């Protein structure tokens, strides 16, 4: 009887499913505790008047209705879209350009890849944001250069038309991860295609648009979605460099959520904002996926 029990336990331990569950358990536990449960809690709180430290009070859709009348929220949406529309394509173009340069075989290829990837490792940090603040500040080298050309009183962070530029550039500077993905994608494109095109007399521009881009389109789709999501969630640079100003010109949605939740203690309202943002991001991602069948190329 005992032997049967032991062999049952052994077979359970050595069962493929058990091994799978054990190995995935850390992720599943982490996902449940730090993602799924907080998500559902935030959904609940979005229907409540909730201040940290006080009990949540159910108020139905009031937070959502208030959001549609909140000019600060709508402004945050506009400036976030502005940031994403300008920043994401700029970053992807830059990443692709560098990836193409780095796929040309050289001895120092590995070194250059590592160097270009460094900004992505440290790019989201407060320290880097502070460096960019100095770089584009009223006494930084860039403004000094602009002033040397005869422009008086210019200041990136004092003017709502210019303030977002350093933030977009700071984001584009962190192109390393997209670059690596592009680089690996470029390596997957069969050389035969280029050789055949060359024989047919296709120039480098023609080869890029007719071979490289179509073959790379699945990678572009992946990078586009990842960068869009990251763009919509931009927070650190805006918080450190401009604090959302001037005149809310860089008051991105993540900043507005943070401010409502932690500065103004309207956590329920902040949760509602988060869910609206989630729906917008999901909608845009869905549209891109749906449209991808028209512009992505899969060999098989």
């Amino acid at each position: 009887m005992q032997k049967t029990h032991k062999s049952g336990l052994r077979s359970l331990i050595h069962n493929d499913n058990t091994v799978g569950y054990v190995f995935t358990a850390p992720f599943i536990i982490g996902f449940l505790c730090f993602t799924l449960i907080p998500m559902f809690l935030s959904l609940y709180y979005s229907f409540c008047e909730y201040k940290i430290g006080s009990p949540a009070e159910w108020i139905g859709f009031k937070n959502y209705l208030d959001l549609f009348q909140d000019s600060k929220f709508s402004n945050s949406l506009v400036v976030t879209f502005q940031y994403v529309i300008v920043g994401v394509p700029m970053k992807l173009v830059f990443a692709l350009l560098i990836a193409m340069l780095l796929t040309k075989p050289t001895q120092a290829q590995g070194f250059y890849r590592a160097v270009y990837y460094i900004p992505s490792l440290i790019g989201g940090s407060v320290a880097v944001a502070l460096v960019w603040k100095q770089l584009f500040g009223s006494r930084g080298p860039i403004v000094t250069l602009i002033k040397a050309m005869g422009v008086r009183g210019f200041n990136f962070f004092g003017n709502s038309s210019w303030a977002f530029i350093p933030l977009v550039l700071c984001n584009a500077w962190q192109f390393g991860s997209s670059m690596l993905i592009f680089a690996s994608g470029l390596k997957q494109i069969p050389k035969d295609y280029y050789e055949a095109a060359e024989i047919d007399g296709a120039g480098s521009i023609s080869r890029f648009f007719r071979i490289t881009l179509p073959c790379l389109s699945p990678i572009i789709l992946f990078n586009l979605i990842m960068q869009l999501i990251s763009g919509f969630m931009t927070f650190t640079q805006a918080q450190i460099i401009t604090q959302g100003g001037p005149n809310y010109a860089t008051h991105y949605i993540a900043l507005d959520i943070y401010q409502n939740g932690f500065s103004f203690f309207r956590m329920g309202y902040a949760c509602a904002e988060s869910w609206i943002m989630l729906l917008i991001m999901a909608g845009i991602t869905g549209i891109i996926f749906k449209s991808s069948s028209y512009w992505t190329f899969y060999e098989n």
Partner: protein
Amino acid sequence: MKKSLIALCLVVAMLATMLVAPAVAEEKPLGWNNVNAEGYVWPDYTGEKIRFMWWGSDTRAKITTEVVELYEQKTGLEIEFEYYDFTTYFTKFVAYQAANDLPDVFQMGNNWLTYYDTIQPLNKWIEDGTIDTTAISPAMLATTTNHANGDLTGMSLGTNARCFCYNPVIFDECGVPYPTPNWTWDEFAAACRTITEKTGNPAVCSVEFNNLVMSVVTQWKEGYNFYAMDGSDFAFGGDIEPLVYIVDLLNTLQQEGCIADYGIQNEMGSIESDWTAYGDAAMCMLTTNLFNALSKVAAESDISLELCTVPRVYADGQSGMVVRSSQQISIYSKSDKQEIAANFVNYFINSIEANKILNCERGVSINSDVLAALKEETDAVNAKIYTMIDLIGSFPDAALTSPAEPASNEEISNVLKAGYLQGLAEGKFASARECMEAFWAEAQVIWDKYE
């Protein structure tokens, strides 16, 4: 009126209790826990641990750590501490609050009303003498008292006042007379224009626009204040004339380049980076406790700065300036080490040895013995701070302490600065009047949200 009367009675009752109760019910003599007394026996807290959290600069971190370590040596207590910059501090504070895990002792600002539930009133330790107040005046205790119920929300870590500082050399070079204690906004504007014209730089660097707007409300008319003393309402009857006056003046000066634009203001991460310290601006606005740090940086460029008052609307009118608690040290309401925390607070506020290290970095000490000891060894910079605090304290309207900041203040201040003042500078409003009418309408909506 009725509320104010009740509040006043409660404060008087509390102070009377504090003075009388020990004499009647205490077995211990008055001042038994005076850490400066000869032969003082330090409590033995070996094996005990408390947590302490504050915000501030690296300088503050260094001196506070030194004081904390000194207390650990004397008592055997282990103090786990953490410190952040101002903005991060309150984000962290709220997160700890949500987890019911705030440190036993924490630094708190004049926004204590927002975090009221987290604060343990100190009254019982004042009454039993654990926190020794024999060298602290009732007026100083009143700066951290909730006037609505008499609760002492913390011990002031020092008093300060908002004022301006200026570089006399630039004033001399531009032929501008030095500010007088009752100089007016017209004189301020004239000085700014002359300095900017002659130097090509903004005359004024850092300016706390919101606080100036609120100060001018007080200056405008006797009895006016932006918020009521107990933080229960606005206290200027919706009269937007003072707001229009000061916003129009500041915006005009900023457009003329006399005051640094919002971009430059935003770049000033700390007072040490203010252009005044490098001779590139003639004036800046600051709180007196920051003058020491600013002067240290200025001294590296051989610049000696002076303090002056905030300009007034009328030379013979109200100053709009107050000597207030710069920040306070409070005890967590859910801490299970409150007795130990109270003893630590007593040491932090009253020890001459500790405060010689702290050197009024958080403000001028509220303990008269400590202050006297510090004044004996003071340097020229701190002497200027003491003189300015004494001067402001002598203004009749400075007897009013700073109003308690209501919970809505954070959002009202934020929209005033980011939405309206910056919006006016960007041409979003046709005039200062239109801008302030819109602000006042929104301020009331925000107020109602927090009611």
